[in-house]
């Protein structure tokens, strides 16, 4: 039997109405992401890449069209239904890290595991933080960590539940070049190890080149869908 795509978008439309005009953010966009693929979505600011990411991850609903995760339509599900799908299949890495300032590094990594009802949350979180090289900083709060360290905690948090799909939104956007480079190395290494489907939103073409496929968005439409020349593992 044909194995379903990890992520499939069919004829997605998204617009916003502001005071007197209608602004189309995504127009009739379709795409398929096979299991285990590393996909980069690139485009300039305002091209709709973050909106596309939010629709694919079920953080938002399309005006029309649908999104399938592992063959399951999430666009007709309510917020709780989509949350359950996210909890089961997805991990996230954000540009602004999105660590909870009130929780320690360990507690931040434990959070999605606890939400999934995993009894072994502390052990898994510890293992994930060890993998990203932060075994010594477990009890530190985000404010006590550098930007690079915070993003490593976020990566540990994303990989700890072993998700099928990882969404990364400009993961190096808030970091300097050297730190950003290190973070990307870590992200790709873990991704390769776990065989996760990676959907990476970035405006950094060099970074995008490291993915298997690059989708270019312009004014809410796909203008280019190409296999990347550089395939590195």
């Amino acid at each position, binding site marked *: 039997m044909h194995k379903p795509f990890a992520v499939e978008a069919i004829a997605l439309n998204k617009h916003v109405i502001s005071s007197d005009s209608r602004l189309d953010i995504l127009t009739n966009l379709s795409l398929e992401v096979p299991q285990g693929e590393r996909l980069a979505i690139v485009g300039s600011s305002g091209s709709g890449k973050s909106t596309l990411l939010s629709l694919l991850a079920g953080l938002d609903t399309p005006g029309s069209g649908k999104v399938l995760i592992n063959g399951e339509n999430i666009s007709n599900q309510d917020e709780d239904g989509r*949350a359950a799908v996210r*909890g089961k299949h997805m991990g*996230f890495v954000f540009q602004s890290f999105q660590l909870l*300032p*009130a*929780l320690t590094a360990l507690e931040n990594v434990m959070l999605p595991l*606890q*939400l999934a009802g995993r009894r072994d949350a502390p052990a898994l979180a510890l293992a994930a933080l060890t993998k990203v090289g932060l075994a010594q900083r477990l009890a530190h709060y985000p404010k006590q960590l550098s930007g690079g360290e915070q993003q490593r905690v976020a990566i540990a948090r994303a990989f700890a539940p072993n998700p099928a799909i990882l969404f990364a939104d400009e993961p190096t956007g808030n970091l300097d070049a050297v730190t950003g480079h290190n973070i990307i190395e870590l992200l790709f290494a873990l991704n390769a190890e776990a065989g996760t489907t990676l959907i990476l939103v970035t405006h950094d073409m060099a970074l995008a080149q490291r993915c298997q496929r690059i989708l270019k968005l312009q004014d809410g439409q796909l203008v280019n869908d190409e296999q990347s020349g550089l395939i590195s593992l």
Partner: protein
Amino acid sequence: MMAFSLAWRQLRSQWAAGEVRVLLVALILAVTATTSVGFFTDRIQSSLQSQGNLLLGADLVISADHALAAKYRTEAMRRQLKTIQTLEFPSMVVNGDSSQLAEIKAVEAGFPLRGDLTVSQQLHGAGSIAKGIPAAGKVWIEPRLANLLSLKPGDTIEVGEANFTVDAILQREPSRGGDMFSIAPRLMMNVADVPATKLIQFGSRVRYQLLVAADRESIADFSAWAKPQLARGERLEDISSARPEMKSALEKAQQFLGLSAMVGVILAMVAMFLASLPYVQKSLDTYALMRCFGAPKQLIVRILLWQTLLLALVGSVIGCLLGFFAQQGLAVLAGKLFLEKLPEPSLVPAVAGLLAGFATMLAVVWPHLLRLSEVPALRILRRDLGDSDTANWTSFIPAVVVLAALVLWQAGNIKLAGAALLTLSVLILVTGLLALYAGKLLSRLPTGSIGAWKLGLAGLKRRPLMATAQVVGISLGLMALILLALVRGDLLQNWQSSLPADAPNRFVINIQPTQIQGVKEFFTEVGITNAEVFPMVRGRLVAVNHQPLNTKQYQDERSQRLAEREFNLSWAADMQSDNQLESGKWWQPGEHGKPMLSLEKGLAESLQLKLGDTLTYDIAGTRLDLPITSLRKVEWDTMRANFFAVTPPGVLDEFAASYITSFHLPLGKEETLNQLIRRFSNLTVIDVAALMQQVRGIMTKMTYAVEYVFGFSLLAGLAVLYAALVATREERVREATLLRVLGASRLQVTLAILAEFFCIGLIAAVVASLAANAMAYYVSVHLLSIPYRFNVQLSLLALLLSVLMVPLAAWLGIRGFLNQSPRALLQSI
């Protein structure tokens, strides 16, 4: 279980990070304020009540003009209440050739149940507290009786058919009360000696009393049982019915304490609501992230509920404990002032505090926390989603319901609670509209030049909802403080002026017309200047509008008694200065001699009489018709001689009148009275100094109570102001940082903050002053029945303090951030 563990973990972490602290502090302050007011009010009220009961000699008295049925005592004993029976009757006391009418009181061992008797071996000077009651065959007599009959301890007297030895001089008897103008001097004997006197026979005027004492609840239960049992001529007395002048002071104090407690509740709830705003705001990201990671809404609701309950538990318990210790400290202080121990606090305020803490948390904070379960996961990417503007008015309904219930409970009075809630609603509406309208006005400001001032004012329009909540919060806090300050001032002033230090403490009655000149001269000789002499003619009311008076028509016993007793009619050309004309007209000089009558308003109401009614009095067998031409309000608690019924001069000339005077006798001048009695032996002097001392003592204690409770409400008010300032601090720091990054100087940023809070303080103070004055007027005039004076100084002071302190406090709150470098700030936000 996961929800609980997540809730606990988050609370713990948020505690470390600080967001939850403000909310918890507000809750603790709220519960502390309400329970300490509750504890203290509870104890003060018990203390005041027992103080008052000292005047009665018991907690409850059943009295009758016939021997009381045994059922009352049997039932009281069955309920294990302390009881004592006493008898009172008038009788002549004979010493050799002289005799004097005395008021005999026969008591059982154990009398009095409340308070003490003071006895001495000499006529004047301090005595000591009596142990027990007069032994069989012995009596204790009042100094006046000793004076009149030239008696000293050891002498023998005759009462009825028995002889007694004077054992001691009775200096002070707590239960001495009744109609002070007909009081004969007291003689106290053992009830076992009564039969030997053979004075109690059929038709004798004897007052039988059953004195009962126990804790408040048992007394209330017994009272409820006894009331329906009362037969004709039997009545139930407690402090309020026994001493009307105490009743009014006691009621006013209780109402003020109720008002303070109520204000405390309102303030507490406002403080918690304001404190929950930054907590909710700061928690938005957490729950958005949890939604993003797959948390179902139900789980978030459960986490929030656990957090609410945990906070309520911790806050309420700590609040109750602090409240208990706070009032304990007060009680120690108050104990020294009160000179006696306060009764132990009951558990009620603690339970009430816990319940109030949970109820407030669930009603005020929970509906707003619940909004967190609606936060979309997309907020992770779009930070504007889920912000506080999505608040909807239905989330305030539980808070309004709980507020109304708590206010009603604390006020203990529907009218007061209604007035408070109405004022509150109007205040919120007006301040809300003003704050919003101010925002609209500001939005029309030209956006060209950006001075610090304009920048600050723009802060108001950038945060219309938060600014409105802030203005309403500050306004409420201020209103409560101004209101309590206003009412407290009026109440204390009213008490002080009602019993000045030179208030009359002696009455002299039975002055004959021929003696007036002599008595006046005597007063001048001894330096008593303030003694006015009033005529008094005794008459019985026999008909109203020419219909014979039927006292049975009156429902309540008090009206019946008033109608049955003899009135002291008086006449005067001018109205007494402490009387107030309520309706009708006072007579002109040309109307002297015409049949007219001015009646005391309370009496007219009790007897259902109105202006224009004609009253017929029987005065020594002659009937006299007098139409009511005016109604007066009389301040009975001034202790001056006052009359229910007054006519113009010349109306009562043909009737035999005696005269009465009242004056202030300074301490240590008691000998003067002996001289007076020696010169005019028929005069009767009534000493109310001891009674006044007691009344004054109780008023002083009530003053302290009022001051203490006021202090606690002040704390609650400050909590509100603090919560209101903290509510937007986070956002303000962020803005200030950005402004500084963009090149604004520290001075510009400071001025912007000061300008914004100047406006907030100004709007809040103006509305608060108006609302507080309106409410204070209502409370003073309609509830406490004390005159209201618009207090311009206090309102101006509040205005000044508000426009100075609110900006200052806001600036102090974020000053620390202004001193950091913009880079450090950027990293921290």
